[in-house]
Every structure is written in C-alpha cells, then in structure tokens.
C-alpha cells in the first residue's frame, strides 16, 4: 500500500460525515501501484478509490469484499457498472487492499469484514457515488473533446451518448485522451434513478462458473507458497486440552517431516507435503492434560437454570409496558451447539518479511482486518508490518471471520523460519473448532379474552461470540448486547407489554459466528409460540399474525408465501414462519405430509435486488441450512469432548432430504437500497418446518433438531 494511494483518497470518515452532500472525492493524478497488478499502473486513468479506466476502455472496479461464493465481487461490480454505464463484460475486478479507512464497510463500523449479510447492503451507497463520479468524469471528458454540453449527455453500453447530435464516444476513445476531466465529487443528486436501472436487478452470467466447473478456481489450499511447508496440528480432542508430554521420535522419522513444533495448546508437524504432515501427526505420542466433565446435558442444565435467575446479569433488548404479565402460555426452547462444516479446510500461510520484522499472511478469509490482528499479535509486530491477502474460500458461513488458523501459521512460520501453510483437518475443526453456541429460551405470552396478544416475555441464555472475542463490538446504550446472541429476538408483532432480554452464560466450546447466528433459533421460538397462541385462541395462524403485524412488507411476504403454498387447502398441513431480519422481510411456508417435509415456499422482500439469481441462490442455500438445522444438526458433548470422531457423526440435510423449494421476491419499492440476503433463508425455514410438524403431529417440540422420526 503506497503512501500516494492513500493520499489520493478522502477518508471514509470524511465521506460519511458529510451526509446530504456525500462525495467520494476525486483522486487527482495518482495511480494505484498496489491495486493494479499491471506492469504500468499509470497507464490507467484513476477516477477514485473504486474506479479506473484503462487505455483500452476497460473499467477497473475495486472490490472491497471477499469472494466467499456468495457473489459479492459480481454484485459490487454491477453496482459500479450500472452508475457508470459500463458494459459488464468490459469490467475487471480488482481486490481491494487492506485499507479500512478507504475500503471499510460503513455498515460494519468501517471494518473490512465480509459477513453478517452486510456486504451489498453496506457498500451500495458508496459504490453508487463512486460509479456516478466516474460517469461524470467520462461525460465531462467527452464534452471537453467534442464541445457537447454535459446536460445533453448520458452513458450507455460503455460509451458517452450525445442524443442531440446522435453521436457517441466510446470509453476506449475517451481513455485514449491525454487526461480525464474530473469534475469533482458526485452527490446523491447525481445518482441514476433506480427506475432507469438496466443492469442492477438482472442476472448476468458469472464467468467464475466456468473456472469452477473446469477445476481452475484456486482456493487457499490450492495455493502453496514457493518453498513452503505444510503444517498440521495435533490438538487434544478434549476441550481446553494442552500437551503435557510429547514423544515425536516416530513422527520425525517419517519421510518429508521437517520439524515438530510445540505450541501452547497443540503440537504441529511441519512437512514438505500434506500427506507427510498428516502421517506425522498420527505418529505423535502426546500426553494431554486431563479432560473436564463438560457435557451438553450439563451445559443445557446450566442454560436453563440461568433463565430462572433474577436481578443483575440480564441485558434488555426491548422493553415496554412495565407490569408483569399473567402468562397464558409459557414455553421453553433449546437449540444445540452447531458447527460450520466448511468444506475447504481452514488454512493460512505465513512467511517472514523485512528480515523477520514483518509477516505476510495469505488466507482463505472473511476479513483482512482480523487476519492482520491475528498476524500482528502472534508475530509481535505493528499492523503496518503485516501484509494480508485473501484467497477465495471454499465455504465460509461466518467461520472465517475469526480465522484463527492465521495465528497458528504465524507462530509456526516464526519458529521454523520458512513459509508455512497451516491446514486444519476437518475432524480437528469439528472437535475443537468454533461453534454456534447452544441456547435456552423461555417465552411467556398473555392473551386478552378476545385472543389478542397483550404480554410477551422472551428470555435467552447463551454464550456470546462478540462477548468472548470482540467485546468492543457489543451493542446497545451500555455496550452490553451481543447481537450474535440476540439477533431475531425483536419480533414484528404488536404487543402493549413486552420484555426481550439475554443473559450470558459462559460455556466451554469456543463460540463463533455461524450463518444466521441466534436468529436460527430465536425466530423458531417466537414463531412456534405464535402458532400455539393462535391455535389456543382458535384462530388461523396466518390470520392471527395478520391481526398483530404492523409492517406492510412483512404482511405482504406472508400473504405471498401463503398464496404460493396454497395455504388453507383442505387436507394439507402447513407451518408458517415470518420475520424481519437484516432489513429484509421474509416468510416461509412448510408443508408436512405423512410425517415428511413435503415443500417449502419462501417469499422475501429484500429491497433492491442487485444480481437476481445470486439473491435467489443465497436464499435457497439458506433454506437448505434451515432444513438441516430443523431436522439434522447437533454437536453433542460428553466427558469434556465433542462426540464426533468423523464427518459422518455430524448429520446434515442431503439432497434426498430436501423438498421442492420455491422462492419469490417482492418488487423493490422506489429507491429501496438492498437489504441483507446471505442469512435470511434460514430462520423462518426452521420455524415453518417446526410449526408444520407441530400441526401435523399434534404435539409441541422444545428442542432442535426436531425429533420427528
């Protein structure tokens, strides 16, 4: 990252502070030494931090988000290309360097983290302004050359059009000129009206698909450093286990093994290839510290007892109408620990730089910023001495935000003095990796004589991922709410008296971010309670909801999903789940036929749709997760360790388990921004499936996965 690059941009803070007259700030002159990857970066015309025009007219788009398979690089480019009037086929995507002041996500406190369904949503306004500014520069330059008036011009298909004369000037012709005229910062007034969009909202083909189906896409584990070694760690299968004594004679005798490195909680075998490292790890004889007696049964009891606690320790999320309620219905809900089951093993490469003062990290990651923190802390160096690069990831789902493999790679590379790639085998991650923490919930609800909701109490007890790892990111007036433990609790129903709160209960497995976070169970608890209340009041669950919902978008998607499914048809059994989450409004209807999940219908209002097909793919993928969480997934513990010695001990929904899934998107309202989509397929799907089985089997379920067979 060169100083010149830095100088050429306005800081993100300045940009965000000037609400109303937002401006990206034109970069006058400077090139992108660090961004271009081209032999002569100055051959391009740099418009701002996100856009440069190359001599042949190619528009370079800087993508500040990581490629997790969700399609963010494509969506980012589409937003820029839309505003610029560029032809998508003549754009090129350049990965942004780690420079949070320029490329941080405004919705993520300015950090470079690709997570939380916030990427398209967070960068949309920034990229539109950056694109508009590039469009204005292209028009101004064409006007200078042809003596047109800017007000008469527009851009389309990679050219500036001048309708009065019927002439056009292509971006390539403009880029060939001596210099670009940069008319200064774009403001909101310069943005294209969204009813003029032609690219945003469509589904252009993604060239990455060809690389994937031919095996050419390179993930982290496909990229070994030159002369680099592979390290595989042996860790105790027991939570918190650490090595007491190590006999590494047999491991060191294995051909290809170069070193055995003892870490605080693990022993690493460093070898010239993966197979030697794996064999070396198997050959280690390690005495571990004794296991605890931790079990998920014990954890569950602890969580459920926490629900009875009074006084301090509760974090209020929403509260209204003080008096205690006389509950007509009290229900408890338990959700187990879950693991991410990422397919590409966690991996990170570290190698010393600048005579060992600095370190270069390359990893399949969701966050360059957090990789840097792991690197700097482990290498004991300053942040600017840590270079970070991201590779595409083979699945992320939140697991690669706290990408702890970086710390291991840095530690081992420092000790052996050579580039080292750490690869964490799946079994190790399943046994000792981060988990979506288990949670116990209790909901108490009161109805009026007419069956209207008059009181609601929702208590949650769980560990917290932010509270554990990033306490400075806690939310709320007194910085005590961990939204990874409370997401989804803010239900959309009208109720005069309510209290929603969370209590942290520290547990033994390491908490982590998992797609959907707590909404994967809070929405289930809310929606199961709502359907039970409706039945108790003798009313149709959809009608009951309609009477209590306030938000038009939620009502609209609920009715849409119901219509798609044929809600109310005689002889069919349905369950429903609705919510507002990550800004989107979502409803799922599940049909249960003969004790089997027979269909899923999802309607979602996600606001502005950027790449339509990728939005549908994200929601469909989320729905598959919903099926899996509702019916299959659970990570259990006994005697201080996860009861999992193999991938096959963690059942997930497979193709044969999936019912037909139909998804429809609501038309965006005028000037809607995009809302989050990455996680929204999960929560209402879990809820709808649970409700479908409750209706079909005439019983209630108090834990996930549902014991339906």
């Amino acid at each position, binding site marked *: 990252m060169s100083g010149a690059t830095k100088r050429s941009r306005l800081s993100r803070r300045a940009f965000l502070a000037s609400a109303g007259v937002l401006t990206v700030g034109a970069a006058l002159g400077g090139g992108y030494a660090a961004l271009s990857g081209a032999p002569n970066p100055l051959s391009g015309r740099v418009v701002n931090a996100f856009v440069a025009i190359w001599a042949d007219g190619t528009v370079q788009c800087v993508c500040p988000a990581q490629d*997790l*398979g*969700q*399609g963010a690089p494509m969506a980012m480019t589409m937003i820029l290309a839309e505003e610029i009037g560029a032809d998508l086929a003549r754009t090129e995507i350049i990965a942004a360097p780690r420079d949070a002041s320029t490329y941080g996500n405004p919705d993520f406190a300015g950090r470079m983290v690709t997570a939380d369904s916030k990427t398209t949503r967070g960068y949309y306004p920034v990229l539109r302004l950056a694109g508009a500014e590039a469009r204005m520069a292209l028009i101004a330059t064409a006007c200078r050359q042809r003596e047109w008036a800017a007000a008469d011009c527009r851009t389309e298909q990679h050219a500036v059009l001048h309708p009065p004369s019927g002439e056009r000037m292509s971006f390539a012709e403009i880029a060939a000129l001596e210099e670009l005229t940069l008319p200064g910062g774009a403001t909101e007034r310069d943005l294209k009206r969204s009813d003029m969009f032609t690219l945003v909202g469509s589904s252009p083909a*993604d060239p*990455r*698909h*060809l690389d*994937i*189906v*031919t*095996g*050419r*896409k*390179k*993930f982290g*584990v*496909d990229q070994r450093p030159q002369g680099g070694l592979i390290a595989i760690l042996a860790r105790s299968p027991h939570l918190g286990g650490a090595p007491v004594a190590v006999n590494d004679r047999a491991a060191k005798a*294995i*051909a*290809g093994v170069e070193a055995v490195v003892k870490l605080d909680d693990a022993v690493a075998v460093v070898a010239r*290839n*993966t*197979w*030697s490292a*794996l*064999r070396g790890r198997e050959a280690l004889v390690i005495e571990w510290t004794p296991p605890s007696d931790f079990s998920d049964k014990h954890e569950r009891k602890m969580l459920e007892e926490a629900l009875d606690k009074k006084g301090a320790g509760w974090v209020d999320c929403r509260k209204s109408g003080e008096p205690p309620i006389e509950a007509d219905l009290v229900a408890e809900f338990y959700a187990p620990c879950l693991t991410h*089951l*990422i*397919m*590409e*093993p966690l991996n990170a490469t570290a190698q010393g730089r600048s005579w060992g003062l600095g370190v270069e990290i390359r990893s399949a990651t969701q966050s360059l910023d957090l990789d840097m923190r792991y690197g700097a802390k482990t290498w004991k160096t300053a942040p600017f001495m840590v270079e970070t690069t991201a590779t*595409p*990831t*083979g*699945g992320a*789902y939140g697991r690669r935000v706290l990408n702890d493999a970086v710390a291991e790679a840095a530690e081992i590379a420092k000790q052996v003095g050579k580039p080292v790639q750490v690869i964490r*085998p*799946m*079994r190790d991650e399943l046994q000792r990796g981060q988990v979506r923490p288990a949670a116990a919930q209790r909901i108490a609800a009161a109805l009026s004589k007419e069956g209207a909701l008059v009181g609601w109490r929702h208590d949650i007890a769980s560990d917290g991922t932010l509270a554990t790892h990033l306490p400075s990111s806690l939310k709320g007036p007194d910085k005590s709410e961990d939204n990874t433990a409370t997401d989804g609790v803010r239900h959309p129903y009208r109720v005069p008296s309510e209290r929603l709160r969370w209590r942290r209960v520290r547990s033994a497995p390491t908490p982590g971010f998992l797609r959907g976070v707590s909404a994967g169970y809070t929405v289930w608890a809310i929606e199961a309670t709502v359907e039970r209340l409706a039945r108790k009041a003798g009313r149709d669950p959809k009608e009951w909801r309609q009477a209590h919902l306030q938000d038009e978008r939620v009502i609209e998607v609920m009715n849409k999903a119901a219509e798609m499914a044929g809600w109310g048809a005689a002889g069919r059994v349905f369950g429903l789940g609705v919510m507002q989450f990550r800004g989107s409004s979502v409803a799922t209807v599940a049909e249960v036929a003969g004790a089997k999940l027979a269909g899923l219908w999802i309607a979602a209002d996600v606001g502005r749709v950027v790449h339509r*097909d990728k939005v549908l*793919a994200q929601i*469909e*993928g*989320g*729905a*598959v*997760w919903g099926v899996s969480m509702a019916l299959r997934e659970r990570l259990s513990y006994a005697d201080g360790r996860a009861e999992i010695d*193999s*991938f*096959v001990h963690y059942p*997930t*929904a*497979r*193709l*044969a388990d*999936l019912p*037909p*899934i139909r998804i429809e998107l609501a038309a965006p309202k005028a000037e809607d921004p995009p809302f989050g989509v990455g996680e929204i*397929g999960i929560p209402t799907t879990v809820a709808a499936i649970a409700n479908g089985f409750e209706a079909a089997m005439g019983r209630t379920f108090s834990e996930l996965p549902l014991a339906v067979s």
Partner: protein
Amino acid sequence: MRLTLQVNGAKHEVVLDDPDTPLIFVLREMLGLTGAKFACLEGACGACTVHLDGAAARACMRRARDLEGVAITTIEGLGASGLHPVQKAWIEERVAQCGYCQAGQLMQAAAFLRRSPTPDAEAIARAMSGNLCRCGTGPRIAKAVARAAEIAKEDA
C-alpha cells in the same frame, strides 16, 4: 516407490516417499492437478471424487500404487473435447456458489449418467446424496444432473 499413473490420458511417473500415499495427494501435490479437492479425508464427503476407469471413486481413500494401469480422470480431464454435458448443465443452471465441492459433484454426476443416462429425480437424489455441498446448492445440482442427461442426448 516408483510408479506410472495414467491421468487424463497422459502417463506420469511419480516417486512416492510413502507407498500408502493416497491418490488425492499425488494428483494435487505431485501432478499439480488441484481440481480435485480434499475435505473429510475419510471418503464420506465426495469432494475428492475422480474417475477410475470411468467409475466414480474417492481419491482420498485409494492408494496411488494400486492404480497402475487404471485410467484416472480428474475434473481437468473431464471435458477433454470441449465441455462435458455435466459442465454445460452446471453453467446453465448456475449451480456453483463457492465451488469447492463442485469438481467432486461433477465427477460423481458424470459417472452416474454414464451408467444411468435417463435417471428420474429419485435416482438423481440417491446418486448425489453422498456428495456434500455446504453452500446448499443441492436443489440446483439435482436440476443440473437432469439437464445434463438432456444435453448428452442432444449432443449425441
């Protein structure tokens, strides 16, 4: 140990430190064919699926030394003459998200369609259920396998 493997139609001589080296690491780290992936390393997730004499096999569970004289095909060699019908169908149906499991999915699908050129939905689900896709592309995989069967007929 020295052996000769026939991979994607070409002969390769490899020298193994360990005679038990699984095929997946020979492909990826000695022959530079990184298209086949590894994940569970116990033959259960399908990410490493390749063809041995045209049949789908888990490359993490097969010793390279047992495969002399066997025609080994990886994703890099699947569409030797242009894209294979499964590859075309995968692009058409926009199956992939992250793509890590997809080489294995494609190899599984191609071997399955060779045996069952006109499968019904249930047979497809059964044939593909041993390959995990954690992104949740399963519904699209099912569609793409059916579409690939059609493309194969059109191409024939």
